[in-house]
């Protein structure tokens, strides 16, 4: 079943065309990554899905409802953790739910525990490490009532080791909760390791250049990254990206 469907979307700022005739979809409980060079309009795409501004052309549907230019339909996790510094971790993860009007303390506590953040409920974001902040931020997205989660390069600011830890953690959490995820990244390995499907965007103006269905079975182990098949995939996608830039 299709969760999110984007049809022939176009957006430009002034005379510069950012997104041109872009169509893609995300299925129920599917993990889709969008891969593209930096500055290829990935963030703009998320802002469009989130309804920050309307597109020039095209429509966006969620659960077959038109959400073009409508806010509050998706759960969004930005690049920086964007936790509010004056709220405790518990209050922060409840923010998304609070905006929608319902706080569920018990579920939140349970999820924090599972995320390895038990005992930090009353801490402030400044007391947490970068990885912990991103985990809290992801928990916030999970606790929000919206069914589609959009992640905008959530691990790009982390160091290599923390990033790998976070990817494994994200997979384990996602395999448990099975939400539809649209994940933006510029890291090929990250996209391969996490996704069911990878959508490669072209340079500006962005449109879908190619789509890959990733055949690796789940649950995925870290050792997957060192297999020949994984490296072959990496090469294929790398060439695809290079061809266009």
């Amino acid at each position, binding site marked *: 079943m299709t969760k999110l469907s984007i049809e022939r979307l176009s957006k430009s700022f002034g005379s510069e065309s950012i997104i041109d005739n872009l169509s893609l979809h995300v299925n129920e409980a599917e993990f889709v990554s969008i891969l593209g060079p930096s500055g290829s309009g990935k963030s703009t795409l998320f802002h469009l899905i989130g309804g920050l501004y309307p597109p020039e052309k095209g429509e966006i549907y969620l659960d077959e409802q038109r959400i073009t230019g409508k806010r509050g339909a998706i759960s969004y996790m930005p690049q920086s953790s964007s936790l509010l510094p004056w709220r405790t971790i518990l209050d922060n993860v409840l923010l998304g739910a*609070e*905006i929608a009007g319902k706080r569920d303390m018990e579920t939140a506590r349970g999820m924090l525990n599972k995320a390895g953040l038990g005992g930090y409920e009353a801490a402030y974001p400044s007391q*947490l490490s970068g990885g912990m902040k991103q985990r809290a931020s992801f928990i916030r997205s999970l606790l929000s009532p919206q069914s589609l989660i959009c992640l905008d390069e959530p691990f790009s600011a982390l160091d290599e080791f923390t990033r790998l830890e976070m990817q494994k953690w994200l997979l384990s959490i996602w395999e448990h909760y099975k939400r539809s995820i649209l994940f933006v990244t510029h890291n090929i390995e990250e996209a391969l390791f996490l996704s069911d499907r990878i959508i490669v965007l072209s340079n500006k103006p962005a449109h879908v250049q190619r789509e890959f269905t990733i055949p690796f079975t789940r649950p995925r182990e870290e050792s997957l990254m060192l297999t020949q098949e994984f490296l072959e995939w990496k090469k294929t996608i790398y060439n695809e990206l290079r061809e266009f830039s």
Partner: protein
Amino acid sequence: MNKLIHRGWRPGLVLILLLTLWEASSRVFEVPDWLLPAPSLIWQEAIHGWSQYSHHLFSTIQLSLLGFVIGTSFGLFVAIILHMVPSLRESFYPLIILSQNIPIIVLAPLLVIWFGFGWLPKVIVIVLVCFFPIAVATMDGLKQTNQELIHYMKMAGASNGQIFRKLQWPHAVPSMFSGLKISATYSVMGAVISEWLGANEGIGVYMTLASSSFRTDRVFVAIFFIMMLSLLFFGVISQAEKSLTKWQSKGGDQQHD
């Protein structure tokens, strides 16, 4: 308490040294009391004259508190309105800055002509000096809210009211306190100036009476209490700030992994 001693002993020592120097020189050079009384004399006047000036002191405390509360409310009101309505901000912001360029000492007699000798012109003087730091600081705090956080809130479906209550307002609280601390000390100064204009009681009145009768020791007592009052107000606001912005003092150096 230990921390206070640890941080305060240097300025404390300098203060004691200066006072000793003052005391010694006024004795050695036999400076007349009406010109510059020794600290010991001032101290004696402060203790023995309590019954004569205590009502002045309380009147000033009342006046500055009243002015401060009204000034703060007005400052916050101005900040929020100007923040919410950009066209108002464009038209009024320069005027607000202009209002601060009028010397209070010139404006005060005018206020007396318009509003008489009651409490109203006095409170207006205090409000005028108080509201500006609060309005400017709060407005800056509101304006400097992280754009990415605003995007997050918008995409999460937050209404403008929610964005203001949950994001912009808490973000502006630390800046607001910077404004409050300045205003708190200004309010005492404003109260004393407004009492010079004509009042029945208050530190300002006490000071004018003392200086016109060459009771220089009393002038110094008045100065001492003005300083103490300002310090006290400042301290109360600082404490309130600490307890309301706990999140700022925590963290930073105590990261966990």
